[in-house]
């Protein structure tokens, strides 16, 4: 353990630690996603807030401490034939990190994998949170039920706020049944234009596609999941739709499917490679133009709307993307680069004012991961 680490094991201890903090705190769950501007200060290790407190398979609901290892939650769900539908990605290989991804880290970063196109993002499955704000006050929002419009939705605000508005302590999530069967159509599409056309055609069909990605050199991937007969039927329909334009191979082995989609979710082609990794969110139909401007290696997910790009170290592609819409985030780079190039996309002035206003009110002393998001 490095110097200047505060370990807490209860929500009360955490609140006390935040109240007592004399300076900035770096909030750490499993320590697997070192993203954003490097943050100064003592490490606040919240992995001790661990454990599943409620799991009702019949209500599709699970509640657990923010420090609970994601693997523990996934194992509990699997034992009941359920899963987190948004397919949280493991970035350890990509980022070269060790440790154990936690539920809190996943929510703080709003980590959502390929199934986001069909099942929504992490924030869409998030039912409730408890957290400690920058004044050391314990707060809750939302709860454990699937429909809740009581008061403002701070639950979503906490998702993807990277610990800058509060430290998560407990998380309630909606879960879904795991499917009986899976199949992936692997289409011999070459280049972003063909890939996006194939993926858009698949996602525009009524066949409930749960993954739509492109690995250059390997092909465009279209996944269907569900009961066996239904998967076979829909895979056949999609083959009929797409095969006339792109040669199709269908992968039905469940282990090989799992490995394939983990490659996409974990951005495996860029793991261990030199260079910075950028993540862009754009309209799928803009993607071919954007990847041309990026002029680097890329892979696509979310029907082409998510671009992962491998670019030379220290290079900020945003100036040459002006006017293309969407936004770009620097996910992997050296600390020096992340200090020099703003990792999170700059916001329009009125939105930047809102973001700054939120930080000022939820963390008036500016001690929670200060500056991480810009």
């Amino acid at each position, binding site marked *: 353990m490095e110097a200047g680490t505060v370990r807490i094991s209860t929500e009360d201890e955490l609140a006390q630690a935040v109240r007592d903090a004399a300076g900035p705190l770096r909030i750490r769950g499993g320590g697997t996603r070192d993203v954003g501007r490097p943050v100064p200060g003592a490490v606040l290790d919240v992995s001790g807030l661990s454990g599943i407190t409620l799991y009702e398979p019949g209500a599709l609901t699970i509640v657990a401490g923010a420090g609970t290892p994601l693997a523990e939650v996934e194992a509990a769900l699997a034992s009941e034939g359920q899963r987190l539908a948004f397919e949280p990605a493991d970035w350890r290989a990509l980022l070269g990190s060790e440790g154990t991804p936690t539920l809190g880290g996943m929510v703080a970063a709003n980590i959502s994998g390929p199934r986001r196109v069909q099942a929504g993002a992490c924030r869409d499955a998030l039912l409730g949170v408890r957290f400690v704000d920058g004044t050391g006050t314990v707060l809750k929002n939302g709860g454990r039920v699937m429909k809740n419009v009581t008061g403002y939705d701070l639950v979503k605000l906490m998702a993807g706020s990277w610990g800058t508005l509060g430290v998560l302590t407990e998380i309630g999530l909606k879960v879904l049944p795991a499917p009986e069967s899976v199949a992936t159509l692997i289409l011999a599409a070459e280049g972003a234009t063909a890939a996006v056309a194939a993926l858009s055609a698949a996602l525009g069909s009524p066949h409930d596609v749960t993954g739509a990605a492109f690995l250059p050199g390997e092909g465009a991937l279209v996944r269907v999941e569900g009961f066996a007969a239904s998967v076979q039927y829909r895979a056949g329909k999609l083959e009929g739709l797409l095969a006339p334009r792109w040669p199709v191979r269908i992968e039905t082995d469940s282990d090989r499917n799992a490995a394939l989609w983990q490659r996409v979710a974990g951005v495996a082609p860029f793991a261990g490679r030199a260079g910075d990794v950028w993540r862009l969110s754009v309209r799928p139909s803009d993607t071919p133009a954007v990847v041309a401007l990026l002029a680097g290696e890329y892979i696509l997910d979310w029907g082409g709307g998510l671009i992962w790009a491998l670019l030379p170290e220290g290079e900020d592609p945003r100036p040459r993307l002006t006017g293309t819409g*969407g936004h770009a985030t620097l996910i992997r780079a050296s600390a020096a680069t992340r200090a020099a190039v703003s990792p999170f996309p700059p916001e329009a002035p009125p939105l930047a004012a809102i973001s700054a206003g939120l930080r000022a009110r939820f963390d008036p002393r500016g001690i929670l991961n200060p500056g991480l998001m810009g």
Partner: protein
Amino acid sequence: MDLPAPDTSILARKAEIVARLRQALPGEAIIDDPAETRAYECDALSAYRCPPLAVALPRTTAEVSEVLKICHAEGVPVVPRGAGTSLAGGALPTADSVILGVARMNRVLEIDYDDRFIRVEAGRTNLSVTAAVEADGFFYAPDPSSQLACAIAGNIAMNSGGAHCLKYGVTTNNLLGVTMVMMDGTVVEIGGGHMDAGGYDLLGAICGSEGQLGVVTEAVLRILPKPEGARPVLIAFDSNEVAGACVADIIKAGVLPVAIEFMDRPCIRACEDFAHAGYPDCEALLIVEVEGSEAEIDEQLGLIRQIAGRHDPREFRESGSEEEAKKIWLGRKSAFGAMGQINDYMCLDGTIPVSSLPLVLKRIGEMSRDFGLDVANVFHAGDGNMHPLILFDANKPGDLEKCESLGAEILKLCVEVGGCLTGEHGVGIEKRDLMAVQYSGADMEAQMRLKDVFDPKWLLNPAKVFPLGVSAERRAG
């Protein structure tokens, strides 16, 4: 239900304020004749009425910005209004407020099938969003029962749901972007045709904020390809408990129906008398709808039949034709109309964990007897969103108050078992004073900080959502 006393200095300046608004919005966009403003004195929570100071009906985002700038400068509260179908009083004005109605802004601005979204002006009705893309095989998923009339603006303000959200989610899960005007007139764009808006999830915060953070004038909505087909079944049971257990078993079995609707005996009887849908005489019935190709539907319904069979249903009715399918939905879809025939009613909207269903229905039955008011239950069972309908007689002195007390008790019960006050209708004025049942003072304070950031003068729909005592200091400025 209290509303803050109107600011007499605003009432005194009415002519001046209206003149400024007219200057900014020429034509017939500003209404101040008391005979005409009365049309805006209430929404669908019609027990509460109050004509506004004036009504502005802009046609563009720029006009919305003009109205807000003037009201901001004059310190006049603004109550945004979509179609006025709120069941919670979300669009109820105060005498010193300007109603800002977006109903004239109803155009489709862009349809993009490749990227699967539609961009519309926020006054467009929910159903006409689907209508714009239906011929091409797409639809907009959230389907509140008022969808023929309700506007996307209100759907966003209340984060509206519907019968099919078990599979497709509610408004917040289908909203990709907004153009929003802040109280000071600043126009902001959040999100768009891409999937992640970026930065803090402001879209998530705005959705369901009941018109208190800004006025949404345009929305980018996710559209989905229509499934090949859909078919409902009706399952009748001898007790609520058994029907509840069947719902849990269906969900656990890995079937994800698009809808699981639940009706109890009082509701079944009323609907049957009203719509003659041919529902069986039973304690509880479920309508379960699944989607897909014919073969996929058969497979899912086969599994549901098997599960239901273990609970010894009184009847399991499949629909062999479009006609029969319609008939299964007929009673459910006329539930509110049926209740309206019998009596005045108040529709509650609490959500509970599905596992608490039998307990909650039993306790509601007991409370109904204690209060001497009938309660019929119809709700979205798959996601635990209940809609108890309390029947009362508005002409009988004291009945409305009794009904409101019973409603409050039922909602407290929902919170007690781990649920919440409102699943899809919103807090408005209706549940405002119950917020403290669900949230601590600190929790409400945290929510109000959001409004402090977006609307520091607390002029947008200020007397809603938070108990008046809790928001008093902020509203006083």
